[in-house]
């Protein structure tokens, strides 16, 4: 193929993507997410045992225990099913907190500009600079271990990228004719920000929210694994923590540590696939106007 022809082909492929047909990765992500949502919602119906009920320890997978049992004989499959609830719950709520904070900061900073912008972006820079994970460990170790504290800790430190993206979008939007005309009609700042500008940033925010869920689930798993999780809630990270600290790894009880590990990865993957798919579409939708 000649160089020119190849260039044409890649142009055509790009145009095809720009049209925004739902891509395979996004569909796979949605399917995975649907499975995990079903597990979480119908946990009591799906899990064969009470995840807290002790029994015979270290049983390998069998007909009665599909993923075997742990060190105190709790059914690992049931733990996994209930763990879906915790992980998704923390993921969604922490992402909600972080995206809400980031959106507010971005909206005000982009719309007000001037001194308010300087202060808010300065604060964003500070939070960006301080390494988040060590700070989360410090805060999680400080506060009593509960999933609400984990949600707040993650939410409080994960908002910076949303704030930046929303701000730059708002800076574009506030100069647009429809905002001008709303202002000309006498609309107040609050009305313009929340009724005109915010709705136009929702697509960016949605992509950020989905990626924030993925990030929050990873962080929750890491904190729980490091022993900073809520001991009263069986999340997947907590299961891995127990499997590691109580010899599941050393003794080769693979059914104890592999399932929660795979579940974390798959659940995060589902959000990553959807989130990046959305972001790519967003970028491609914006491309023609930039060229």
């Amino acid at each position, binding site marked *: 193929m000649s160089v020119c022809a190849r260039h044409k082909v890649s142009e055509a492929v790009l145009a095809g993507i720009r049209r925004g047909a739902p891509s395979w990765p996004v569909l796979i992500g949605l399917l995975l997410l649907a499975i995990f949502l079903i597990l979480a919602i119908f946990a009591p119906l799906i899990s064969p045992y009470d995840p807290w009920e002790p029994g015979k320890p270290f049983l390998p997978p069998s007909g009665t225990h599909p993923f075997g049992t742990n060190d105190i004989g709790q059914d690992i499959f049931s733990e996994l099913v209930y763990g879906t609830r915790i992980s998704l719950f923390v993921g969604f709520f922490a992402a909600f907190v972080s995206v809400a904070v980031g959106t507010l900061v971005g909206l005000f900073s982009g719309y007000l500009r001037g001194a308010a912008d300087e202060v808010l972006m300065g*604060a964003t820079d500070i939070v960006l600079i301080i390494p988040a994970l*060590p700070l989360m460990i410090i805060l999680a*170790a400080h506060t009593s271990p509960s999933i609400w504290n984990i949600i707040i800790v993650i939410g409080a430190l994960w908002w910076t990228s949303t704030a930046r993206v929303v701000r730059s979008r708002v800076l574009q939007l506030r100069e647009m004719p429809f905002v001008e005309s709303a202002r000309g009609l006498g609309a107040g700042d609050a009305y313009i920000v929340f009724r005109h500008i915010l709705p136009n940033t929702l697509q960016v925010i949605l992509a950020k929210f989905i990626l924030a869920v993925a990030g929050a689930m990873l962080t929750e798993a*890491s904190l729980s694994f*490091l022993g900073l999780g809520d001991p009263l809630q069986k999340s997947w990270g907590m299961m*891995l923590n127990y499997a590691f600290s109580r010899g599941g790894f050393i003794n080769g009880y693979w059914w104890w540590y592999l399932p929660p590990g795979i579940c974390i990865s798959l659940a*995060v993957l589902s959000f990553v696939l959807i989130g990046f798919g959305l972001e790519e579409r967003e970028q491609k939708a914006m491309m023609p106007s930039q060229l």
Partner: protein
Amino acid sequence: MELDSGLARYIIRRALQIPPLLFGITILAFLIFYLSPVNPVVAYLGMTTVQKMPAEDIAKVEEQLGLDKPAYERYLLWLEHIAQGDWGFSYILKRPVLDVILERFPATLLLTFTGYGLSMVLGVVMGLASAKREGSPLDRFLHHLNYILYSTPTFLAALLAMLVFAVWLGWLPSSRMISVNEPVTFWAYNLDRIRHIILPASVLAVSHLAVFYTYIRSSLLEAMREDYIVTARAKGLDERTILYRHALRNSLLPFVTQIGLAIPLLIGGSVIVESIFAWPGIGKLTYDAALRADYMLLMGMTLFTSLLVIIGNLMADVAYAILDPRVKYN
């Protein structure tokens, strides 16, 4: 000459942004300490000692530690001490904070550089392989692999690597920086250290690969659509030369700033990797300090790692400004 003075002004202006950032960070670090539920006197002397002490002695210690003063005075006092090189006293290690941090830092630097370097090389190689033929089976495979890498928690990768290579295969040691019985000869000693670093550095590299790969791939693809590439094609250069000599060079430039931005993430990664592989660096130090509520050490660590990030970002920006003559210094 004109350019040099512009660059100098740029560096000075960039450096002037640092003090307000530092101010914010010190306030945050101080608040962590100030709002902590632990009584500093107990932390300093231990519960049993404090219980046996009469009330006036406790008051005296509080006065010594400056606890009777209002918050802003304590903050200023802390800043003054920091400026004098006195970063406080770690009560779990019973040693000055700055000494401990500086002693542990080289280990982290070694691990981070090795892991980071590996990650960048892999990222560039994979990005090139992808960008060579956008949409080819190899590109799609790497793109999807990248999603999986992105979704795997670092601690999980660390555990699996440890399990496979240290426990099952027994090829590599699973923890520490050097064997308990340190080898004596020069070659055996260094070989032992290399064997110890392979696992943690590889895990660190893999945990960061997704970010680098995505960045290099998209910036290569973007570069391939630029006018100068069309010109190069029109001149009749072959694709290989275009990719390596033209596109790659220009894609690596903004990568420099990317490296600066990734430092906080890398420090986070090193906390996990160091904790799992018992690597005696500042990541493990932070973790131990947080679990045992060593606030002086934690304040110092927060300040130290933030300083690293600020310096790293500044160096990346300046390097970028020097390397790319198109950058306007404003």
